[in-house]
Structures are given as structure tokens and as C-alpha cells.
């Protein structure tokens, strides 16, 4: 499947491509280029790995898709929205449609697993009963229903990552972004998480998983792009 494109007209129409990067460059203050002239297209419902060593630009790529970082040059279209110059109101909507999972889980230690998942629902102003019910179902889907009242610190690394996945999925996102989701886990737990991702993918969610673990794309049997020092080194 071709992911690299060139000289393609920027279209914000909703089409089969859910994520489109057109010659994207991201330079941090001090002139450090994290991404250089990267063009990638991701189909709706695709499961794509982003490989590369540390500092290759994988995290930056996910951050600009989530709207955490701004593109320095080029264009980025996510689900028909031009994120390059997205207004704040649309940015929050984009984030509601996009789940994320990070290597360090980003769970709040002073809240239970259920409350961590509920956080993503409360911002939508849903009734407390519905919030609890949906958070519980999300935890059940990742096999942690019985640990809903436990503090993240009482959970194993794999369980914490599954709580993060439940939080990412609780709003039924169109896209799930994962940044080194198995970086803190052993091989067995990593495979468990990948199985979870495959299940999510089967339900039609688009997945972008950044990892330096070469074996994961092969384990899942999914395509990947490789970043090297901010440039697209290998496609497909």
C-alpha cells in the first residue's frame, strides 16, 4: 500500500484517506528538525506501524496528528480537517475523535482505573450514571472490569496500559494513536497489548502505532513506515 505521496493537491474533503500529510516539516525552536518533508496517507480502518530508532520523529508525527504540535511547513489533513490551521474549537473536537495511548500510560495516580477512564467521558457532560456504565464497559472490553476500583499504582504495567487503552476507546474514536505502547512491557505483555489492538482494528478503528520494536509489525502482520532522522526512509 503506497504511503508516500508527492505534489498532491490538499483536499479537506472526507474521503477514504483519514490522515494525510503533505510534505510536512516540523522544526523545534533552536532549529532542530524533528520531521523533514514527510508525506504519508493513511486509509480509513488501516493499522499502520511507524518504526524507527529513538529521535527518528515518531512521537512528533503522532503529536502533530493530535494537534499538540504545529506543523512548521506542509499540510496535514485529519478526517477532512486541515489541522495545519485548525481553530481551537475544532481541535478539541478532533481530539475527542482521536484516542491516544502513551508509553508512560499517563494515568492519574490519585484516581481509580474507572475514574481514569471516566475522565474522557466527563468532559462531554454526560450524566454520571452513563459515565460510570460506559467506563465500566470499556474496562470490561480490555479485561479489567474486576480492577475498576484499583489505583493505577496497584496495577501491573500491562494492566495500566490496558486502562489507558480503555480510556482511549471509551469515546469510540475513529483513530487510535499509540506511542511506544509496549515500551515499558515485557514480550508477553506486549503481545497481549497487540492482540488488543488487533481486536480494536477489527472493529474498524484506524490505528497508528509508533514503536522501535521491529517484531511488532511482523507479529500483527501489518504494514509500516520507517522514519530515520525525521525523514521517511521506508514505506509499506
Amino acid at each position, binding site marked *: 500500500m503506497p504511503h508516500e505521496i508527492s505534489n498532491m493537491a490538499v483536499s479537506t474533503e472526507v474521503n477514504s484517506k483519514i490522515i494525510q500529510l503533505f510534505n510536512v516539516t516540523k522544526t523545534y525552536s533552536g532549529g532542530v528538525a524533528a520531521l523533514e518533508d514527510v508525506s504519508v496517507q493513511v486509509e480509513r480502518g488501516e493499522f499502520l506501524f511507524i518504526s524507527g530508532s529513538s529521535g527518528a520523529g515518531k512521537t512528533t508525527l503522532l503529536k502533530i496528528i493530535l494537534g499538540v504540535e*504545529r506543523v512548521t511547513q506542509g499540510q496535514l489533513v485529519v478526517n477532512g480537517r486541515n489541522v495545519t490551521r485548525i481553530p481551537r474549537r475544532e481541535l*478539541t473536537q478532533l481530539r475527542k*475523535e482521536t484516542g491516544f495511548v502513551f508509553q508512560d500510560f499517563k494515568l492519574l495516580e490519585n484516581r481509580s482505573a474507572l475514574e481514569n477512564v471516566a475522565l*474522557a467521558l466527563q*468532559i462531554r457532560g454526560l450524566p454520571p450514571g452513563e459515565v460510570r456504565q460506559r467506563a465500566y464497559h470499556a474496562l470490561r472490553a480490555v479485561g479489567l472490569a474486576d480492577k475498576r476500583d484499583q489505583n493505577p499504582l496497584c496495577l501491573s504495567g500491562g494492566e495500566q496500559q490496558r486502562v489507558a487503552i480503555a480510556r482511549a476507546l471509551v*469515546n469510540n474514536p475513529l483513530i487510535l494513536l499509540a506511542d511506544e505502547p509496549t515500551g515499558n512491557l515485557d514480550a508477553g505483555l506486549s503481545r497481549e497489548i497487540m492482540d488488543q489492538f488487533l481486536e480494536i482494528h477489527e472493529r474498524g478503528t484506524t490505528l497508528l502505532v509508533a514503536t522501535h520494536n521491529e517484531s511488532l509489525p511482523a507479529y500483527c502482520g501489518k504494514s509500516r513506515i520507517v522514519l530515520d532522522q525525521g525523514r521517511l526512509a521506508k514505506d509499506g
Partner: protein
Amino acid sequence: MWAYKLLYHLKTTVQNIREHRATVLMSLAAVGFTLLLLASYLLLLTNLQAIGERLGKELQIMLYLETGLSGKERARVQDAVTAREEVEGVEYCSPQEALRSLGEAMGEAAHVLKGLEENPLPPSLEVRLKKPYRNLEAIEEVARVLSELKGVADVEYGGGWMKRFFAFVRVLRWLALSLGLLLLFASVIVISSTLTLGFYSRKEEIEILRLVGATEWYIRFPFFLESLLQGIGGAVLALGLLWILFQGFRVNMGTSWSLFAGWIQPHFLSTPMTITLIFLGAMVGVISSLLTFSRFSEER
């Protein structure tokens, strides 16, 4: 939907306050103390102003007439005074009546008046002004106009010391304004620092909330509520403490105050002033939160 959001905000606010109980209490005490200083100053000022107003109401103009005026000429002066819009009433005081009043006022020392060969006191008119004109500026103006009437030898209205008193109150009022602004600014800094601590301690949660799609206002609202509560709480605390101090003053110093202020009893801040102080507390909270937010907005 907004009602549930408000519920979550209230829960978060309570949680924030609980987690940083000591900091919030310190901040509340600091804000309360600074507002107490301001409220005490206002209390003193309003009481002094009440004394001034009361004394202003007592002010009347004494017109000393030239000696040797005929009854007709005196009546003409009296009519001219009565005809003025500002004048409520005029009372004639003959030299004999004036001497008798002086004798009564002197009490046991009145015998010295008995040695006088002739009455040195001139006839006079006591002029009482209508309510809206019972202030120093109006009295001064009326006195100036009346002094120019034919047959009037001199005018007296005790304006010198009143002028000094009102000038003193004016200085106090300006001081209150400057001090008030300074103290309110100090309160803003205190609340803003507490909020900043709160922002830092919830940094991770804020980052997560942003990533799951919370709007900036959703993130800010609990902080806004917290600072509003601190501002209002500080003002209520200041007013409560001031009320206790005021009661103590009334019990211990009430008599001395009455002697100083005539028959004016010390009074607490009026309801509008109390509400204004609470409103000021709330504004301090709002300004503090807005100042803090500007430093913690998401940078993109």
C-alpha cells in the same frame, strides 16, 4: 449537559481544595487579612464621614447686623434672607437675648457680664438652611452672598474648622483608595500564586484532559471557581473579623467615641458597602484566575 459539567467542575474544585488544604487556608487567611485592613479603613472613614455630615447639619449661619438699624431696615434684611431658595428659616436675636444666652452659657462666670456698662453684642439673624444645602460648599456660598446685603456687619458659620475636618476626611478617602488598590493587588498576587501551585500540581491531569479533547474553559473552570471562592471567602472572613473587632470596640470604647463624635454612635459598614466588599473579593478572585490562565494556556 452543562449541569453535569458543572457537577464535575464542583467535584474537581472540592477535590483541589481538599488536596491543597493548607495552601488554600493560608491563601484565604492572607486575602482575609488584606481585605480586613481595607475594610477597617473603610469603617473608620465612613464613621468620620458620618460625624462630618452630622456636624454639617448642625451648621447655621449667623448674620451680625449693624447696630442702630431701624426695625424697618432689620425687617428688610430678614425678608431678603428669607426670600433665598436655600433658606429654611430665619430667627432674629436681639442684643438683649444674645446677652442672656451668653450669660446662660457662661454659667457661674456670668457675673462678669454684670459689670458691663452697655450691651456690646450686636443684633443678629440665625439662618437655617434647607437639607440639600447643609454642606460646606453651599453654606460658604450662601454666607458670601448674605454678607453683601446692606445692613449686615459680619457673617459667621464656623467654616474654618469644618473645612479642615472635611479636608482631613478627603485625604483619608484618597488614602483609602490608594491603599485599597494596593491591598487588592496584593490579594490578586496571593490567590494567583495559590492557583499557580494548583496548576503545577495538576499539570499531568491538565495535559491528559487536553489530549482527550477538553476545552480550555473546561480545564480552567475549577480553578476559576476555586479563586472565586477564595476571593469571596477572604472578604467574608475579613467582614466577620471586622464585625467582632467592631463589637469589641463598641463595648470598650463606645462612650469615648460618643464624647468625641457628639451623639453619633459608631456604626458598622452599611449593607451596600458590605456587598461591595464581597463583590471586590469576588473580583479579586476573577482577576487572579484570568491572570493565572494567561500563563497556562496551551501553546501550539
